């Protein structure tokens, strides 16, 4: 256990990066996913097809390849992250971090889109028909009848998607972000006799993050559940 206890600063720095990655790409993926689902379920066929194509492509690509895209191909399109030089206490948020956030966000947004779409599909048609029948205009049907129900129905799948994102942040280790898994690999390399203790320590860190998030999501779900 000493290997971890002596390097607690590395441990917490690792999970600090994990948390930063999760928060930044969590928010971004929700925004992008909402935009995508608006295109996806919207009335404009071209946008709907384009969004569906994007979702299918991204969902079937390994996250590693998405990361590779932003390391190799994105610079050609002038998408670079060299401008990112934020220092946040002990944390250096540099180009690698920026590329990781964008990769994670774009990848997760496809899943967010599907989660939100399943929420929209869960609203019974009769609800909208009844709302139109009593004379609500389009905005009223949306804001007072359809979207509140759709949003509630999509909380559990959205929570699953974000939990998957917490775990997916580990892929940033492959592309040069010093987050938890990369620290774990470094520590295991230097103290290979204590690898089990190191593994358990880092696993506990992830379990705490995942359980905290799913606890919050459960509370929200119960809070918003209708009857």
């Amino acid at each position: 256990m000493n290997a971890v206890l002596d390097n607690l600063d590395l441990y917490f720095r690792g999970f600090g990066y994990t948390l930063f990655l999760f928060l930044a790409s969590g928010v971004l993926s929700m925004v992008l996913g909402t935009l995508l689902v608006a295109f996806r379920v919207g009335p404009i066929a071209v946008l709907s097809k384009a969004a569906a194509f994007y979702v299918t492509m991204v969902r079937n690509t390994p996250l590693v390849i998405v990361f590779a895209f932003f390391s190799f191909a994105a610079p050609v399109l002038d998408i670079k992250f060299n401008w990112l030089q934020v220092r946040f206490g002990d944390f250096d948020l540099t180009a690698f971090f920026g590329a990781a956030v964008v990769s994670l966000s774009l990848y997760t947004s496809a899943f967010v889109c599907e989660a939100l779409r399943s929420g929209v599909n869960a609203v019974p048609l009769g609800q909208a028909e009844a709302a139109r029948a009593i004379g609500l205009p389009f905005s009223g049907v949306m804001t007072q009848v359809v979207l509140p129900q759709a949003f509630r129905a999509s909380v559990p799948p959205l929570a699953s998607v974000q939990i998957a994102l917490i775990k997916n942040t580990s892929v940033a280790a492959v592309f040069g972000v010093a987050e938890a898994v990369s620290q774990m690999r470094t520590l295991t390399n230097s103290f290979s006799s204590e690898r089990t203790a190191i593994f358990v320590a880092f696993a506990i860190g992830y379990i705490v993050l995942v359980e905290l998030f799913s606890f919050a999501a459960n509370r929200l779900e119960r809070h918003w559940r209708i009857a």
Partner: protein
Amino acid sequence: MSASVLFDAPGPRTVARHRVYSVVAAVVLLAFLVWAVKRFYDAGHLEGDKWEVFVTPRFLEALLVDGVLETVKMAATAVAGAVVLGFVLGVGKMSDHGWLRWPAWAVVEFFRAVPVLLLMVFTWYALGIADDSSSYWAVVVALTLYNGAVLAEVLRAGVNAVPKGQAEAAYAIGMRKTQVMNIILMPQAVKIMLPAIISQCVVALKDTALGLYVAAPGLTAISRSIYLEFDNRVPTMFVTAMLYIVINLILTWLATLVQKRFVGEKKVLQVSMVGGAPDDTKTA
């Protein structure tokens, strides 16, 4: 008339307006595409010699045999192991005996909450990084443990999805607990589970790409050696992505087929906390 929760059937003016939007959207998307292709062309990524590798039989063979086949082998081994593990853990979780149920629950929760990459790195070191085959087995073992835990949940959801009356009727005619499980519930649950298991294959296949971090063989490793030799990172990346996408689309298509054949119009099994699974948020 298309019945939609979101929109009423559009009138003639709306149809005209949407047509304008469609044209504008198409032009914008096309412009972006043309711009992107032009950038890649200007940077020399679309030149023939960068792509020539992928039509050279020798390298194509390496890509398909040492790459795709190896990756599929890893994923298939892992899924086979995961089905067995998932069955054991799932049955354990449904046991009436606390001493069996709680450990099974703990194992499932542990492996579902831990990133696959963490498992991979640990297994890699545990098997000994000096050994050549250890990285292959690190990928397989890590994927088996993770997907096994997920499939345990799928099994439980599958058994729960069998109508209650089935088990009640079986008990009523005097069957014992194991008989109810083996003769009545399992055969029906497996049918319901099949599409979810195939979808899990997609997840396993995608996760084999993580083997990059533990120096495992497979598609990503072959791609790496190809672009290091020919300096064609961008084309290699596109080809690799395409190969993954094609295999996964075939699997997804298979899952849909099995769903239609065995389950019918019922919803695809929903299992929480497996956000990676491509089909778990799809509603029938």
